[in-house]
């Protein structure tokens, strides 16, 4: 099983030794980032897929893991649903080699998926088992993104088990923000650094005073914002086609995810805020002249 052009010892089924690996071993272990939200339906899976694809486009070896055991979806969002053989539960239980369960993206050499099991219950594996399973991949990837299930029960705990960092996805709605706040508390108790991604912002509604602004959300939750994604139809089209939205270079949401990927890598890129601005700017934007 040849996964990389560059050698990745631990990924080779015949070689289970802890070799130097693509990232040079212990010193350059990849970062595990959990994508979570508390509330369901705010865009965790889309975020995982889009951010994973965007990081891969930046040349980062990226693994996206679906930790939503029993309700897997990351595979269909990435268009890889027909290629699943093994899954996270198999890896956690040692039923297959770590490398055997990975599926490479059709679109990128750098993007891999570890799917969830569709037939098991969320508590079929323990936090320790999941952590051990995920840690095995760290030396071969720059980033490991873990798509958490909704809720704050066992599935969420499993998804956070190996994470050093978290991206909390929310929308500018009271229910999503309230749940996000719960998750901020739980993650900080675990010592995981959390940043906020505000999804589905409608700047027209913000201007009309009918949607919480980015500033409002930051005020309320008091954590750093890693990105803002506008409400955008191209997300739905991308999901229909099983192709991450970042490959669509006319998509505003795709652009936003590309910027977020660069921020995840440590670049400092300002977060554009279109909720203010003069009338002329607004008019200009509406007819596509200014930005």
């Amino acid at each position: 099983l040849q996964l990389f052009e560059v050698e990745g010892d631990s990924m080779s089924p015949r070689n289970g030794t802890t070799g130097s690996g693509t990232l040079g071993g212990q010193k350059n272990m990849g970062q595990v980032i959990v994508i979570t939200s508390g509330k369901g339906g705010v865009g965790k899976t889309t975020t995982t897929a889009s951010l994973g694809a965007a990081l891969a486009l930046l040349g980062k070896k990226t693994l996206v893991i679906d930790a939503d055991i029993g309700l897997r979806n990351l595979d269909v969002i990435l268009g890889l649903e027909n290629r699943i053989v093994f899954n996270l539960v198999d890896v956690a239980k040692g039923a297959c080699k770590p490398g055997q369960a990975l599926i490479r993206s059709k679109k990128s050499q750098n993007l891999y998926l570890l799917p969830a099991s569709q037939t098991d219950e969320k508590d079929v594996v323990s936090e320790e088992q999941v952590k051990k399973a995920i840690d095995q991949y760290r030396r071969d990837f720059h980033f490991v993104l873990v798509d958490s299930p909704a809720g704050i029960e066992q599935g969420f705990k499993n998804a956070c088990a190996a994470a050093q960092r978290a991206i909390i996805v929310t929308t500018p709605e009271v229910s999503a923000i309230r749940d996000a706040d719960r998750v901020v508390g739980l993650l900080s108790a675990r010592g995981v650094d959390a940043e906020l991604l505000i999804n589905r912002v409608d700047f027209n509604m913000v201007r009309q005073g009918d949607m919480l602004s980015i500033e409002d959300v930051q005020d309320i939750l008091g954590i750093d914002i890693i990105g803002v994604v506008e409400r955008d139809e191209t997300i739905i089209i991308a999901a229909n086609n099983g192709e991450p939205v970042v490959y669509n270079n006319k998509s505003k949401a795709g652009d936003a995810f590309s910027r977020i990927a660069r921020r995840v890598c440590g670049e400092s890129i300002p977060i554009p805020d279109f909720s203010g601005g003069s009338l002329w700017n607004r008019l200009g934007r509406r007819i596509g002249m200014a930005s």
Partner: protein
Amino acid sequence: VFEALRKTIFGSRKASRSNAKNRLQFVLVQDRAGLTNEEMSAFKKELVAVIEKYFVIDEQGFDIDYQRNSDNTVLLINSPVIVKRDVAGNSTGDTQYKQRSRKNRNRAAARAAANLSS
């Protein structure tokens, strides 16, 4: 301009954004503290009672906030206090403020009197 037009045509409607923000900020104080509604108001009552033992406070402006920073969580208790000389009546502070707290001041004054006589 459009905003003004819209308002004159459709009548002004209170924007839901600030409503959402206020409601969230309120509910999150309780969520973060892990207290029920009753516990929270009991806590507030007891706090007010303790502070009132030593200070004259403006109960209207009394506010509890549970704020999370990057490395710690802080219970912020905002209790406007009327300074002693205010009680004596030689303050130059703002009158609206004094009016609102007159009730409290009278109560405190009564209490002080009670203490003196005991």
